[in-house]
């Protein structure tokens, strides 16, 4: 829906700030990633709502460059929608997205956001990488292209396809799926951006285009079931694409494959592990159990929860395109660095993730914190790969 559709709602935000906390106050601190970093009221859900009202609904403030930076620093993590005490709570992130659509219409996005969108338009990915190279990560593996009658399309997404850190997860998942005996394939150079971030950044037209293109490809190939590496892809394919496709996040599929005995994890994996819930799997799609069920099924893993878990998880800071645009900026209190410190405090030696965006964000933060010798970031697919008998 457009911002105009929310014009009678935006001013209802009371700026009371419940949305900055976790639901059970189990954590001494704030759970809105941008407020945790900036500590200015403007960078908070209530501040955003009031600024959107003043700038884009009432026209009392000119939508400036600074406003656009504040708006796009939000990672769309959905903590605010989860914690706001009012009836309209679900609409808060919808308003944030609608405000971005308005900024895109007026061409007032921060330069890095424009760059992201342009790159996706020109190249089908934000990195300006060639389409032909999209499946380079799968070289020297047995992972092949999707063929009609394959049961699953393995949809990798831009980050898993091109980011060197996340490619490890893409390969590991491919390997695990091969080991399960499931028939599946990837799209290779026919895969283009799923559009989740494009949608979150407010470029509706481009999102519709991506959706149409992907849908066309899926249909041409006769795809019925899709398994995604990224929760971002999962979110948009499941909720915004046609219902004809049955969409799974890989943790859901692997959990089922373990349960049905198609994957044997008896080799185990000996480590203390803590798990970081990605926003687009957790708060957006309410899937908290599948990743944990996998981890606890693997012999040798001791799962230790961080202070903030499940619906109270703290965003890695990469959502809403920030993994690329970095509107949120650097420094000691970037969400990813806060999160890595929190993971380290549990005493775990492995910080498990189930999202390529979280993986790259947290990996960078680990280096910035100098914790590489104490903690390793591993995707659940990598842990599974190592645990297979």
């Amino acid at each position, binding site marked *: 829906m457009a911002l105009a559709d929310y014009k009678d709602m935006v001013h209802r935000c009371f*700026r009371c*700030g419940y949305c*900055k906390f976790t639901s059970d*106050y189990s954590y*001494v*601190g704030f759970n809105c990633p941008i407020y945790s970093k900036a500590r200015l009221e*403007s960078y908070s859900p209530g501040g955003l709502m009031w600024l959107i009202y003043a700038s884009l609904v009432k026209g009392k403030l000119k939508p400036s460059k600074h406003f656009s930076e504040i708006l796009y620093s939000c990672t769309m993590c959905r903590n605010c929608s989860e914690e706001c005490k009012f009836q309209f709570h679900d609409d808060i992130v919808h308003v944030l997205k609608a405000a971005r659509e308005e900024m895109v219409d007026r061409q007032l996005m921060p330069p890095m956001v424009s760059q992201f969108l342009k790159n996706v338009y020109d190249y089908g990915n934000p990195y300006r990488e060639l389409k032909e190279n999209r499946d380079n990560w799968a070289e020297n593996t047995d992972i092949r292209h999707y063929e009609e009658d394959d049961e699953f399309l393995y949809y990798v997404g831009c980050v898993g396809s091109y980011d060197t850190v996340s490619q490890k997860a893409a390969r590991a998942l491919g390997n695990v799926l091969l080991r399960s005996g499931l028939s599946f394939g990837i799209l290779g150079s026919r895969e283009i951006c799923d559009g989740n971030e494009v949608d979150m950044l407010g470029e509706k037209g481009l999102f519709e285009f991506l959706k149409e293109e992907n849908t066309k490809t899926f249909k041409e190939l006769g795809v019925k079931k899709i398994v995604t590496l990224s929760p971002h892809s999962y979110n948009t394919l499941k909720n915004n694409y046609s219902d004809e496709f049955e969409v799974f996040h890989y943790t859901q599929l692997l959990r089922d494959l373990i349960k049905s005995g198609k994957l044997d994890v008896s080799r185990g994996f000996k480590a203390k592990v803590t798990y970081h819930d990605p926003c687009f799997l957790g708060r957006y799609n309410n899937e908290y159990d599948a990743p944990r069920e996998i981890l606890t099924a693997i012999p040798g893993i001791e799962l230790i929860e961080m202070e903030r878990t499940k619906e109270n998880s703290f965003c890695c800071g990469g959502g809403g395109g920030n993994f690329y645009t970095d509107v949120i900026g650097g420094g000691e209190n970037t969400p990813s660095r806060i999160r890595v410190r929190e993971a380290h405090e549990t005493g775990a030696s492995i910080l498990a993730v189930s999202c390529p965006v979280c993986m790259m964000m947290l990996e960078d933060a680990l280096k910035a914190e100098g914790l590489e010798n104490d903690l390793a970031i591993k995707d659940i697919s990598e842990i599974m790969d190592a645990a297979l008998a």
Partner: protein
Amino acid sequence: MDIYGSLVEIVGEEFVSDQEEELYIYSRDSGAQQPRKADYVVVPKTVEEVQKIVLLANKEKIPVTPMGGGLTLSGLAVPLKGGIVLDMKRMDRIIEINEKSKYALLEAGVTQGALYSHLQKNYPHLEHSMPDAPPMATIVGNVVIQGHGHLSVSCGINSQMVNGMEVVLPTGEVCKLGSCSVSPYWFTRDPLPDLMGLFIGWLGTTGIITKIALQLFPKPKFRDLLTFTSNELDLLPDFIFDITQLNLMDNLFIISQEWPPWAQGILYVPIVSAQDEEEFELKKKLHIELLRKYEGKITLVEGKHADRMREARLPVPPVTLGVMAADAKQGGGFEYTGGIVPIEKVPEASTRSVEIAHKYGQPYLLGYQLLTSGHSMMCGLAYCLNRADDEDVEKVRNAIDETNKMILDVGGVLWKAEAPGQRLMVQKMDPNTINLMKRVMKALDPNAIMNPGNWSE
């Protein structure tokens, strides 16, 4: 002089803003008062930074308005004369919990939510008296306005629970008050001259509190509320007298509101707690037995309405009916006159506030809190507003003004009064008292830089 540049030098670029967006946000609150434009927003981390900011402001005669959660709804942290808004919430260290002497030593930006979380996690047998305000409110902001929490009746109002303070004076000196001025322990405010009185109730006009020691209390194993209903307002003073003579409550809310219909009468909501189940049941029983004296006139509410009250009033931190009032008109705000009145004047104040509400086309919405063990009543007379409708906001401002006058007229005083309400009190005040206040303010703040526009005529 380059004020912005100097502020950046003190706290770093990230934590100063003179951009329209921050100025907009810090120039208004969720109540009905007029916005006042800030010139700078600064978010300090240390007492040294606060000190430097104050020295700069004092030299350049720039107003400084300290702000915690900014949640009073009466514009008390909105900079009436512009200048710097000092958002204190980055000073958020919980420095110490002294378990045996039961106090928390906190930096000024620690929120109610943060202290609650810290105690829940590390000292689950201790609690602090938590206001019904959203948990973003700071401990210090609440103390400064003499707020009250869920232990108001059993343990007193929150400003009475302060053992010590560190303050930055408007001229830049850092000063310790209470036992901490003599000893490493922040365990008591007595028996020294009570200099903390120079900062409590002054709404930031006399200095900036940077640390505070707050008393903690045993957390009970059992806590519940009872709901009594009555249609006879005149019984209120006697009933309050009787119920406080039992001396068994943590807190007592009184609610009367036009909507929903079952809340139209007077709802008395005593909160009781105990460490032991038998004691707990006995306390509840004694309260219910009190109703015999008021047979047919005050009755116990049970069932779904009582459960709804539990849901709204029992959780700490609260999600109160009060917060919900902000969306009653789907308008994003409300403001209330907090009149503190003698118990015998509550019926008159209530009747007159219903009349005022109706005159302004508002449903009545009264939320009262008994203060200490029956010594006065905070009468929260609330008006919901629609922020999108300037006329509606102005109407609420006028209703607040009229309610303030009524409270003063019945012999009450105004709690956390907006600047116009403060002026009404100053006009009524004994001239020698206001002169003394002026002398104190002048002595502490010769250039009148601290939250100016408050406590002045």
